[in-house]
Structures are given as structure tokens and as C-alpha cells.
């Protein structure tokens, strides 16, 4: 059947990289204890024609990350240049809407902003030594971190507060890695000799911990995806397709398909055999008619022009035992114990048994959710942000980002989102979102050190180069995170009645007529009255006949 309607194309590809800043900025929310074993890693079958452990240049002691990079570049001559132009390195994205976005630019409703919190936030930068957001990332070749993505020994990591450098011998007491574990000394030679294509762990070590802890930010990217069960992710599960992130997020010269800021608007579906794929969409493998050629399959295929694959096939997010943060109220942060010490409360136990903070003096109150039913909205792929220079109306809920799209535009589809509710600081004089410096153990200004918002905001605004009125307040915010990971097996896809019923998941969504949702329409009421009238009529008629017959009528029927 010719699909006349234009389609809003489904693009996976939430730029994974946006998960990074939070983990850099914040303390890990999960309560970790115990000794620091390097985590077990995901095996990826290698198809390489080179065994890097046989390369002489890698058979030596390395004293730093950049030394390893220099050795890599002696063969991979263009890699540094490629990486440095990528969003993983620049943290900047020029949106076609005209906005300059990216981690270095935007504010969010989690840890807020990178500026002013650099060595912490930039611990997840794909480089070494970016300690000032006011300057561009380091430009020397060996500042690129090859190992973060290519280490296959499993023991490479980055310190949580060292602008991207790994923990090396001797490891400082109390040092923590980017994924919130007590740090161990990385063996750089072992890492260098192990390199290969990225596994789920390479990406996940940053992206699964965005927002300050496991699954805090995205909701559909958690440590569960290191080794997911089939039920959590049918593609990434070792019981399933055992995909790595880059199976879908295909790359070309260190640029990856899939962006959360600008989702691909078109995708012709399956390409010719062997044809290069440049998008991380479902259709790029599954085509635009993915369901079997049965009556129901055809009916389901009829949905794909207005319903994103994710809407039915990711029935809930934050599955598999790791919760996601759904509410973050910064306005209550700073409450100290009677002894004047920072406090914490752990009133949420997630599926895997781990207790999570529900209050921290450093961060305020949180709420968590597991198996969360998404928020649904029409989405054409375009996301824009309330950046730090834009005026806001503090009497209303401020949308930190907005997803564009409508039924009528012919390009949008109904997508699932994680709706993040927040309360965060704003400049009450200029009515704009505020930047805050929260991290800075050696400073007098950082909120986590001194619990003084006025100093923290003043320092944050200064670091971001944003004019500050001197007054601040807290404003309620919403933020939308497209859900595209944790695709469930087909048998777990949403049942029809999840939407085709009164008060269903899509209740209130404009621009749809769905059978089953409006049985009490005025035709429905009229019809019921008509049927009721007929029933009463025949019952009355029948009774009258009975009465008259018993009166001695001569009817013979």
C-alpha cells in the first residue's frame, strides 16, 4: 500500500552523550560500599585484523592517558582530528533551529550546568584536561581519550573529578570513578593493548550514569544494559542479538548517528544489501512495514505513520531493577542536621534491592520510578531549549526543553518521553534560569561545600558568563527525554487497549481519533436510547398481549 502520509521518522539516537554531564557533576546517588574490583566487562566478538597486544609501541609502561593517545595516533593519524570535531569532544551542537545546544551550552533539570563545575563534570569528557568551560576543549592531539571508548580490558576508567584523567598509582584515598565506584589504579599498558570496537560498557560507563548516578537522567539507559535480560532489551541482551550501542549508533569517522536534539526526519527504511546506514532508526533495519503480512499485521503497519515504534515496543522504561529519578527538587537542598552536618535519607529501594537517596542536603528531595509509563507527545524530531539567556515566566512551569510536533504537520509521530519534574534555581531579577556552582571542594562558593545558594549562583553565573541580578528563587520545571532504548520483545509490546480504551495512555492527546475511547459520544448515547426504547417497546407490547390474552382473547398464537 502506498503510504501517502508523510512520516515523522523514528530516530533512536538520543545523543547518548548528553548523559555525560550529570555524572560528571554530581555525586553518585547509589549507596555503594565495599572494595573496588574493576567491573566485569561485556565481551564483544572481535572482527579485527590486528592484535594490538603485538604492537611494539604499546608494549611499554605509560605514565598518563595522553601518552597512550600519542602512541595510538602514531598509526591512527586522523583519529584525533576526527574525535575533536565530534560532539563527544566539543560538547556543542548547532541545531537547525538556530540554537547552539550541547552539554557546554544547555541547562537541565538535573545537575543544572557544566560551567563552574568543570573538573567534576568534564570527568566524562572524551578527552583529558578540560577544566574550564569558558575555553574550548584542549586542542593538542594527545588530549583525546582513545581508551574511554576503545579499552576492552575492562579496567580502564576515569576519575570522577579529574577532568577526564584515569586513576593511576598511587590512588588517592576516597577517590571515586565516573560510575561512582571506589577508584582502582588503571593499568594503561594493559588497556592500550586490549583496544577494539566499543562495547556496551565503554559507552555505558558515562551514559548510563548521567545526572549523577545509575539511570538518573534518561530512564532508558541504565547499568542494566551492560548485560540486559531479553525482557529488558531484546536487541542488547546476550540472550537476544547481543548488540552493542554502536550496532545501531553507526559511526563514520568518529561521528555517530543518533541525536537527541535533532532526531532524523526521514528514513527510507531498509537499504540495499550492504548499503551504508547512517541513521540509528528502527526502520533502518526493520523497514517502514515491520509487522507480518497478516490482517492484524497490516493494521499495525497502518499505525506506523503516526505512532513511533517506541510507543508500543517500549511499554515502560527504567525496567530491570534500576530506577530513574522522576522528580528533583533543588529548593529543599541545604537543610542540615541539628549538628550542622549534611544529611541524607534513603527511603526508596529499587528492584535490585539497592536503597536510593530521597533527600540529600547537597541536592534536595528526589522521587524515583521504575517501570515508568511514559508521557506521550507528537514529535517531529526537533527539540529546543530554554537556554540561560532566555526569559522565563516563573509563575508557570518552565519547560527546560520543548519537543516540537503536531498531528497536522505530517511529519510527527506519537513518541514516548520521560517527563522529568524539577524545581531549580533562577535569576529572580532577570527572570532566567540560573547557573549554579555546586562542586568545588576547595572553594568558598560551591553549594556542596558551603550550602549557600547566593554564593553558588553568583559563582555559577560568573563561570557561565551570564549577567546576574543578585536575586534568585526556585521555579518548577519540566524536561522531556525521548525514550528509545530498552525495546521489549514483541510479545511484551503494548496491547491495543493500552490506547484503545477510555482513559487510556493517550487520553487527552490532541489530533487522534481512536476506536474504543469514546463509547459515550452523543451517537453512542443516542444509540443506547434507541436500543433501550426498542427493548421497552417490545416488552410493553408483549406484556399488553399477555394481559389481553389472559382476559380471554381468542388469539391462537
Amino acid at each position, binding site marked *: 500500500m502506498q*503510504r501517502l502520509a508523510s512520516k515523522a521518522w523514528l530516530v533512536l539516537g538520543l545523543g547518548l552523550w548528553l548523559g555525560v554531564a550529570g555524572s560528571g557533576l554530581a555525586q553518585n546517588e547509589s549507596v555503594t560500599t565495599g572494595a573496588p574490583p574493576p567491573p566485569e566487562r561485556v565481551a564483544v566478538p572481535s572482527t579485527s585484523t590486528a592484535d594490538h597486544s603485538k604492537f611494539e609501541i604499546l608494549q611499554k609502561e605509560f605514565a598518563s592517558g595522553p601518552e597512550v593517545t600519542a602512541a595510538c595516533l602514531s598509526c591512527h593519524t586522523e583519529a584525533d582530528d576526527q574525535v575533536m570535531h565530534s560532539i563527544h569532544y566539543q560538547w556543542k551542537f548547532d541545531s537547525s533551529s538556530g540554537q547552539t545546544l550541547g552539554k557546554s551550552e544547555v541547562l537541565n533539570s538535573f545537575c543544572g550546568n557544566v560551567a563552574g563545575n568543570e573538573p567534576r563534570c568534564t570527568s566524562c569528557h572524551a578527552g583529558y584536561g578540560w577544566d574550564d568551560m569558558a575555553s574550548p576543549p584542549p586542542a593538542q592531539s594527545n588530549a583525546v581519550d582513545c581508551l574511554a571508548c576503545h579499552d576492552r580490558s575492562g579496567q580502564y576508567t576515569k576519575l570522577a573529578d579529574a577532568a577526564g584523567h584515569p586513576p593511576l598509582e598511587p590512588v588517592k584515598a576516597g577517590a571515586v570513578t565516573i560510575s561512582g565506584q571506589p577508584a582502582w589504579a588503571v593499568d594503561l599498558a594493559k588497556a592500550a593493548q586490549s583496544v577494539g570496537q566499543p562495547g556496551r560498557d565503554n559507552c555505558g560507563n558515562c551514559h548510563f550514569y548521567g545526572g549523577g548516578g545509575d539511570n538518573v537522567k534518561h530512564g532508558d539507559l541504565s547499568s542494566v544494559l551492560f548485560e540486559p535480560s531479553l525482557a529488558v532489551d531484546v536487541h542488547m541482551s546476550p540472550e537476544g542479538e547481543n548488540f552493542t550501542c554502536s550496532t545501531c549508533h553507526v559511526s563514520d569517522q568518529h561521528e555517530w548517528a543518533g541525536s537527541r536534539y535533532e532526531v532524523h526526519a526521514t528514513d527510507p527504511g531498509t537499504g540495499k544489501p550492504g548499503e551504508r546506514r547512517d541513521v540509528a532508526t528502527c526502520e533502518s533495519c526493520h523497514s517502514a512495514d515491520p509487522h507480518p503480512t497478516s*490482517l492484524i499485521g497490516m493494521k499495525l503497519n497502518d499505525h506506523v505513520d503516526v505512532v513511533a515504534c517506541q510507543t508500543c515496543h517500549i511499554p515502560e522504561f527504567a525496567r530491570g531493577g534500576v530506577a530513574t529519578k522522576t522528580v528533583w527538587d533543588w529548593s529543599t537542598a541545604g537543610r542540615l542536621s541539628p549538628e550542622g552536618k549534611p544529611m541524607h535519607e534513603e527511603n526508596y529501594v529499587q528492584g535490585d534491592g539497592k536503597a536510593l537517596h530521597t533527600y540529600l542536603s547537597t541536592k534536595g528531595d528526589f522521587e524515583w520510578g521504575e517501570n515508568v509509563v511514559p508521557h506521550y507527545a507528537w514529535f517531529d524530531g526537533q527539540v529546543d531549549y530554554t537556554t540561560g539567556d532566555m526569559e522565563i515566566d516563573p509563575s508557570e512551569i518552565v519547560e527546560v526543553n520543548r519537543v516540537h510536533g503536531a498531528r497536522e504537520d505530517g511529519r510527527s509521530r506519537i513518541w514516548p518521553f520521560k517527563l522529568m519534574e524539577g524545581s531549580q534555581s533562577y535569576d529572580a531579577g532577570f527572570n532566567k534560569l540560573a547557573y549554579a556552582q555546586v562542586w568545588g571542594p576547595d572553594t568558598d562558593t560551591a553549594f556542596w561545600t558551603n550550602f549557600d545558594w547566593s554564593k553558588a549562583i553568583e559563582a555559577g553565573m560568573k563561570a557561565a558568563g551570564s549577567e546576574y541580578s543578585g536575586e534568585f528563587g526556585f521555579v518548577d520545571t519540566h524536561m522531556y527525554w525521548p525514550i528509545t532504548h530498552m525495546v521489549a520483545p514483541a510479545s511484551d509490546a503494548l496491547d*491495543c487497549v493500552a490506547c484503545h*480504551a*477510555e482513559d487510556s495512555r493517550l487520553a487527552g492527546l490532541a489530533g487522534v481519533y481512536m476506536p*474504543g475511547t469514546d463509547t459515550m459520544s452523543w451517537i453512542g448515547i443516542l444509540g443506547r436510547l434507541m*436500543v433501550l426504547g*426498542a427493548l421497552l417497546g*417490545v416488552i410493553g*407490547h408483549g406484556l399488553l398481549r399477555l394481559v389481553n390474552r389472559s382476559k380471554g382473547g381468542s388469539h391462537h398464537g
Partner: protein
Amino acid sequence: MANRIVKVFPRFERFWHWTQMALIFVLIFTGFGLNGVHGLIPFRMAVTLHTVAALVLLAVWIFATFWLFTTGTWKQFLPKVEGMLEVARFYAWGVFKGEEHPYRKIFWRKHNPLQAATYFALKWMVFPAIWGTGLVYLAYNFWEPLPNAVFLLKIVANLHLLAAYVIVTFVILHVYLLTVGHGFREHVKPMVTGFDEIELTPEQEAYLEQNEPWRLKH
């Protein structure tokens, strides 16, 4: 004039009637499930059954229409005002007094005038309305790019629903009226066996004896 047991409903007509009945019941049950009136059947199964039953019924209707016109049976369904008032008066009044039904079946007129008018309206208005809107509804994805498609879909869906409620109302009255007069069993029997008691003119009798003896029970 003589009362004879005559085959008034040939095999195809009976097959047509009962297939139609079964399919309409499937359609009513699944359709009102889809509409949200009841939740007795899973939505997905209801979609399948409703679609298949509708397409089968359409096929049966195409055959029936062909049969009606080639056999001349279509004339049975032409409404006539003559006698209608008497029948209406009977249902509203006479039936309570134990009067006889005013209509006498004749060979070329199996239906009483009210019945014929009802079937005429069904065949010419309600059935076309339901399968017309149903097909348009089913083919939504072909015309979805039209401006205001969602609004049009809502109109189509509600017209379909209205026609469905009219059919339910018809079914209630149709079944009830079978109990009036000679009684439910007597009324259903001809549609099962094909034979009914009919007043034949001597000429009709002679013709049938001569040319279509299988129509007459001896």
C-alpha cells in the same frame, strides 16, 4: 384458492439469511467490543473477527444481490403502501384483541407491507450505510492525507456506529415480531425448512404442479 405447503425459501435464500444472521451477530458483538461498550473480547481478536466477518458478509451480499436480481425475487422487497395501514393498526391494536393478522401471504408476496418497507429501508439505507462507512473506516490509511482527516474519521466512525445501533434495534424488533401471530416457532420454521403455508390461486397451483412440482408438498 387453496392453502398449500409451498417451498417459499429456496436453499440459497435460507443459507443467505442464516449466514447473514450469524455474521451480523459476530459483527455486533465484536463491533461493540471495539467501541468500548463491553470488554468481553480482546481488542486485537475483535479487530480480526470484525474485519473478516465484514468482508465475508460483503461477499455474501454480493451473491445475494445477484441472486435477487436474476431470480426476480427483488420484487418481493418493493414496498407498497397498500395494506400497510392495516398491518400497522393490527400491531398497535388488533393484536391485543386477538384479531387475525390482516396480511395473507401470497406466492409472490412473502412479506407483509410493513415488513417489505422495513426490509427495503434496511437494504437500501441501513446496510449500505454500515458497509459504506465500514469500508471507508477500514481504508482510513488511504485517505489519511486529506485535510481534516481525523475529523472526517470521527464522522465516519460515528455514522458507522449509528447504523450499527439501528441494526441492533431492527434485530430486537425483528425477533420480537416473530412471536406475534402464529408464534415464534411457526415463523422461524419456513426459514429452516423452506416450506410455508401459502394461499395459491388455482392457476398458480396448476402451474406449480405442472412445472415446479418440487415446490409443493403433497
